[in-house]
């Protein structure tokens, strides 16, 4: 934690804000010691004067030097603001952690109090408390402190609730740790960082709020003075003597900003940075499709990101009409990126290149000669290229009815009227066996179950006349029974309409079940391409075999540990010279570690295993 705070101070914003804050705090400590005399010296010869060599910012109505008064006022202003912040934080912490200590009933009452108090703006609460506590510095500190408490209470509640769900809290609870001890020993240390950051930002706000109260005359009372008081007193003279009003105002803003910026810099520094570099896309020459039966032709596809990393490096395959092709591999093998690249859904800064990428004979990459082709390409993809995404829970827009979301594409690309598109959507929902399709079409995504949403997502792909469905882990988020239903549905669609399917999955048993052909990916490459029927007997790449061996079946001995592939997937940023799988492969030789094998005769391996050498694997056909 400490090193991260230091890292924050090394950023330009963090360092600037830190220095500014340090300066402001030093001023508050030392200014009254050094300049009290100058600030209070009454010079009756120079009343309400403008800027002069003797008085930089002029004098006030008693001839006191405004510049020194602004400097000296820093202590009162900042001290009172910090006091008020402390009251706000302590009260807020007590109110916000009350639910964790008091149990259900007391907790609910505390939450209700906070909910109601948060609904009122801080200034209004401050005015209310100012009436109760009386006009003056003490009353204002209490008023602003209590007025700031509800928002800290809300913050504490949120943070405590976030921590309370973590495993170590559950473990402590099971171990019988008492509520109060739990709060102090386990919860508070874990939320201290965001609390401190927010208190820093809050101190800036408190400083400004305090200046506000003093400004309208409810805060610091004469002869004491803070920045707000000085501003309020000199406002009426702003025409003749603007410096007297502007100087304390500028001081308040600078001090407030110092707290604010420092807090924000720390908050940002402790979060995650977003990569900023921007990549331009190259436009390789498009080659016309050779295979008239081919729905999708991919030749030497590469996907890269700034870093630079190239998670997909030279993938080639062809999908024909009515064919179901499986693309398998561990997480991070590049299979989902391949799917997104094929679908033209990689967003900058990601960059896609390929020797050829064509869909139904039309090139998808490369510069378009005329503008109209962009629309043509969009229409082609919009009607014939369907995507089914992994997570049906998040892939629908939560604010729109399912039917409307299905109908949208048809209205756009097929020019259907609102009603015709809705009827088509209902028809398609029926086709994917959504019961009571008419009623369902008018519901929102949150009213659908996961399996039902995935059907609806497939139905969305069927709104046009798809030639290809790219399904990216369509069953991963679903339970086993629903998985099978969704796979069956894809199979049915293929056999009824001759639609090609590219099925991406990390689960080789899912792929073996419905695919015609399987592409095995490792570290951004296709390492083996084989018919699904040969998975059981014909796999030659050691990685394919290892994947198959890792699938448990009814013969797996229950008393032995599950088979796993040793080692971990390679980091695409640090690829070895030779075969990317060499480090995890029991057949690897020196050649494997120096020379990168290419896909020859459907397998990319220097030591492909003989086909008959094993037969104990099952394909997962159940």
């Amino acid at each position, binding site marked *: 934690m400490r090193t991260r705070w230091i890292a924050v101070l090394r950023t330009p914003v963090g360092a600037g804000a830190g220095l500014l804050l340090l300066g402001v705090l030093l001023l508050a400590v030392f200014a009254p010691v050094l300049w009290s005399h100058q600030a209070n010296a009454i010079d009756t010869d120079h009343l309400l004067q403008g800027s002069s060599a003797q008085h930089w910012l002029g004098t006030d109505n008693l001839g006191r030097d405004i510049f020194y008064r602004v400097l000296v006022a820093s202590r009162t202003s900042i001290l009172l603001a910090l006091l008020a912040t402390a009251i706000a934080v302590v009260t807020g912490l007590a109110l916000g952690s009350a639910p964790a200590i008091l149990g259900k009933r007391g907790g609910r009452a505390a939450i209700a109090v906070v909910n109601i108090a948060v609904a009122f703006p801080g*200034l209004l609460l401050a005015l209310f408390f100012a009436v109760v506590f009386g006009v003056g510095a003490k009353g204002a500190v209490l008023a602003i402190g209590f007025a700031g408490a509800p928002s800290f209470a809300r913050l504490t509640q949120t943070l405590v609730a976030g921590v309370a769900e973590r495993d170590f809290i559950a473990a402590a609870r099971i171990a019988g740790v008492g509520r109060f001890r739990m709060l102090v020993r386990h919860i508070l240390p874990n939320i201290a960082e965001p609390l401190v950051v927010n208190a820093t930002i809050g101190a800036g706000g408190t400083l400004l709020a305090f200046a506000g109260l003093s400004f309208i005359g409810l805060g610091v009372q004469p002869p004491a003075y803070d920045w707000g008081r000085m501003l309020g007193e000199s406002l009426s003279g702003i025409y003749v003597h603007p410096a007297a009003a502007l100087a304390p105002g500028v001081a308040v803003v600078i001090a407030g900003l110092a707290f604010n*910026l420092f807090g924000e810099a720390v908050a940002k520094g402790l979060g995650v940075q977003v990569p900023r570099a921007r990549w331009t896309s190259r436009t390789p020459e498009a080659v016309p499709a050779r295979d008239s039966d081919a729905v999708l032709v991919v030749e030497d596809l590469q996907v890269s990101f700034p870093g630079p990393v190239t998670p997909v490096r030279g993938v080639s395959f062809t999908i024909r009409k009515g064919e179901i092709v499986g693309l398998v591999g561990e997480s991070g093998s590049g299979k989902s990126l391949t799917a997104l690249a094929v679908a033209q859904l990689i967003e900058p800064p990601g960059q896609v290149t390929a020797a050829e990428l064509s869909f139904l004979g039309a090139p998808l990459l490369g510069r378009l000669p005329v503008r109209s082709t962009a629309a043509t390409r969009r229409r082609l993809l919009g009607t014939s290229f369907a995507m089914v995404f992994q997570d049906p829970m998040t892939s629908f827009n939560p604010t729109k009815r399912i039917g409307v979301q299905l109908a949208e594409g048809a209205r756009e690309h097929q020019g259907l009227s609102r009603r015709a598109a809705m009827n088509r959507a209902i028809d398609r929902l029926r086709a994917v066996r959504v019961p009571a399709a008419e009623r369902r079409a008018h519901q929102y995504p949150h009213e659908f179950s996961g399996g039902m949403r995935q059907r609806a997502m497939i139905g969305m792909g069927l709104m046009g006349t798809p030639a290809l469905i790219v399904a990216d882990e369509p069953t991963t988020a679903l339970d086993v029974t629903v998985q099978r239903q969704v796979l069956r549905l894809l199979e049915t669609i293929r056999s009824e309409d001759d639609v090609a399917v590219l099925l991406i999955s990390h689960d080789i048993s899912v792929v073996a079940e419905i695919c015609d052909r399987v592409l095995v990916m490792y570290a951004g490459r296709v390492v083996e391409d084989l018919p699904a029927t040969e998975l059981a007997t014909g796999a030659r790449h050691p990685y394919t075999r290892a994947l198959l061996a890792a699938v448990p079946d009814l013969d797996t001995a229950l008393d032995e540990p599950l088979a796993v592939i040793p080692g971990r997937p390679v980091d695409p940023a640090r690829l070895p010279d030779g075969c990317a799988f060499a480090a995890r492969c029991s057949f690897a030789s020196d050649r494997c570690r120096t020379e990168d094998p290419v896909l020859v005769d459907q397998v990319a391996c220097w030591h492909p295993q003989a086909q008959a050498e094993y037969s104990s694997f099952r394909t997962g056909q159940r």
Partner: protein
Amino acid sequence: MTTTVSAPVLTTHPWLAFAVRRLGRLAGSVLILVSAAFLMIHLIPGDPVRGALGPAAAQSLVDAQRASLGLDNPLWQQYVDFLHHLVTGNLGTSITTGLPVSDVIRDRLPATVELAVAAFLVAMLIAVPLGLAMGVLTRGGRRPRAELGFTSTAVVLAAIPEFLLAVGLVYIFAVTLHWFPVAGRGSVASYVLPVLSLAIGPAAVLARICRVELLAVLQTDYLRTARAKRLPAAAVYLRHALPNAATATITVGGLLLGGMVAGTVLVENVFGWPGLGSTIVSSIIAKDYPLVQGVVLVYGVGVLLVNLAVDVILALLDPRSTIRES
């Protein structure tokens, strides 16, 4: 504060349940507000009437005033009387002027409402298009310099409280350039500076939130789905991204409107605006408690109504929010 909803009619009609729940909460909040306003006068240390009339006032005068305010009755009876008077629109009489509090409020309220509403509209009209445009322009790390400039300007503007902004604006546009009057409420020009003082800070906050929200929405799976439908870019942004980004923007916008209602207090004092804000400050200083009570109630109810409006709009935009709380 939510009432437990068990009747079947409420579970089958989420909107009815929402209305019952939300109005229930409003009623609870109003009751607490009214009670707080009532208790305020009793929480003040010492005799509020003595405080208001000053140490020099004759004891007979203080006693008479106490009697007319009903302060010698038992507390519960005072509370019942207070509620009864509220319902009949009687907010008591100002100690300093002797005028009915309701008359003072009727006189002063329009100026404050005008100011807050105009500032809210100006803030929304600046912030939402600006935030969305910045979001689209800086998505995926594009134009880092524009992003830095936008964010730092917005942070600085948002950090300046409205009354200081008001002083700065007065200095530049009234004292130096003579474009607008320094203070007062009259011509259209006299509205410009107070409205801008109130609107600029919230607009900066809102524009930042709007941009960040849009960026978050652009990352979602359903936006990818929308792109997979090959909709034109404008349709993706306006139809799919905007409503989802609007949810947080409106939530914060509503909170800011509540804050603007309160911010009028300070801005009115800078510009000598004849609204409730100047009234509440002068009445607090004069210890004119019946007037303070009345104005606090008006401000509080105003904020509660704004919050209610925000919740209703949110429920219309994002149907999950009606269900979420149940």
